[in-house]
């Protein structure tokens, strides 16, 4: 303790080394007079001062940047939803967003409505392209493949749900409806193929408008699928299972 006392006295003595008041004053004057005071020149850019203020506060800066990124992502997703085949956003829509949507539907029951709509989309897009006179050979080739692939995907998801339902005897009533759905899907695929076989015909546009809408009736087909999934399988005795 005694030695710490001596150490503290020594430290106190060292702390007594100071500048004289004159030295202190002259040094301060030198420092303050050595730099010219910067005149405030208003920035021509009105956003820069605001941006500078935002950058100073890290929390606000990172928050704003995160919001900006989220807004940009949402805008891209919304823009890609309306994109047609051939647009630069179309691959994003077809390869990422639709895949993510199908992944986010966990149960086969949830997955079926969205997948049931997929095979009709290329046909609608084909119609749009024909109306716009934008359907060229590479696009035709790609559009030929899409309905088949999506039909297979839909059939797969229906098959996935089948074993689970077959365990329940009460769900036997669903089988004809499901069979109808698969038949509808096959028909969609078949008609798509026919459509592409007829692409050399002069009246492609007429063919699409008349025969596709009437024969395929995609909206009606989708509606039937939706009704089925909304009401659910009918049980014995007329009950509706939700």
């Amino acid at each position, binding site marked *: 303790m*005694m*030695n*710490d006392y*001596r*150490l503290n*006295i*020594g*430290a*106190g*003595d*060292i*702390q*007594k*080394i*100071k*500048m004289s008041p004159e*030295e*202190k004053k002259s*040094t*301060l004057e*030198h*420092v*303050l007079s*050595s*730099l010219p*005071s*910067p005149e*405030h020149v208003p920035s021509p850019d009105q956003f820069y001062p605001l941006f500078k203020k935002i950058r*100073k506060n890290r929390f606000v800066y990172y928050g704003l940047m995160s919001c900006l990124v989220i807004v940009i992502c949402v805008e891209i997703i919304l823009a890609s939803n309306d994109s047609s085949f051939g647009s630069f956003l179309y691959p994003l829509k077809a390869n990422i967003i639709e895949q993510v949507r199908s992944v986010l539907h966990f149960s086969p029951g949830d997955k079926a409505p969205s997948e049931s709509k997929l095979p009709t989309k290329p046909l609608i897009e084909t119609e749009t392209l024909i109306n716009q006179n934008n359907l060229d050979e590479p696009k035709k080739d790609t559009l030929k493949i899409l309905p088949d692939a999506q039909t297979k995907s839909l059939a797969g998801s229906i098959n996935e749900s089948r074993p689970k339902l077959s365990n329940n005897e009460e769900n036997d009533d669903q089988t004809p409806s499901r069979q109808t759905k698969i038949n509808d899907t096959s028909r969609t695929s078949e008609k798509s193929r026919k459509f592409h076989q007829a692409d050399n015909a002069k009246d492609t546009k007429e063919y699409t408008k008349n025969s596709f809408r009437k024969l395929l009736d995609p909206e009606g087909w989708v509606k039937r699928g939706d009704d089925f999934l909304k009401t659910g399988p009918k049980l014995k005795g007329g009950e509706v299972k939700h």
Partner: protein
Amino acid sequence: MKEDRAYKFEKIYQNESDAIFRFCLIRVSNREQALDITQEAFLRLWQSMLEEKEILNDRAFLFTIAHHLIIDWYRKKKSISLENVMQKEGELGYDRADETFVSNLELGAEGRHLLEKISELTPVCRYPVYLRYAENMSPREIGVILGISANVASVRLNRGMQELRKIAGYDGNGKI
């Protein structure tokens, strides 16, 4: 706005100028040179304040600037008289405090003794011990000034204190 900055600067100057001057004086053993380095350190602070740079710890900032200015001053000095400097230890580019200079300082006996013994410590431990006991700095601040982590500063401080207690007779063995 500028008045606010000037007021803040003067406040920092009143609080820290003696500590910075003392730190420089003990290192360079030359009052005029110590005043020059002190002035330069405060000039850099004032410049940074005018440029609205973010300074988290004014004290650590000033000591860091002073530390680097002293190293620069020794490097220049080395290039002028290399032979003289080579004889002195210079791991961090510092000289030991000049003994005649220390004896000329208006210090109490304990202060002079402590300063001499701190000068005899190894350079690695010398500055952490000085900053801790003469300037009441935390290991974290010492770390910032010397460019090392707080843990390393703490370790060096402990080793330096053991060494100092031994050579200064603060360990109770009655060497003094």
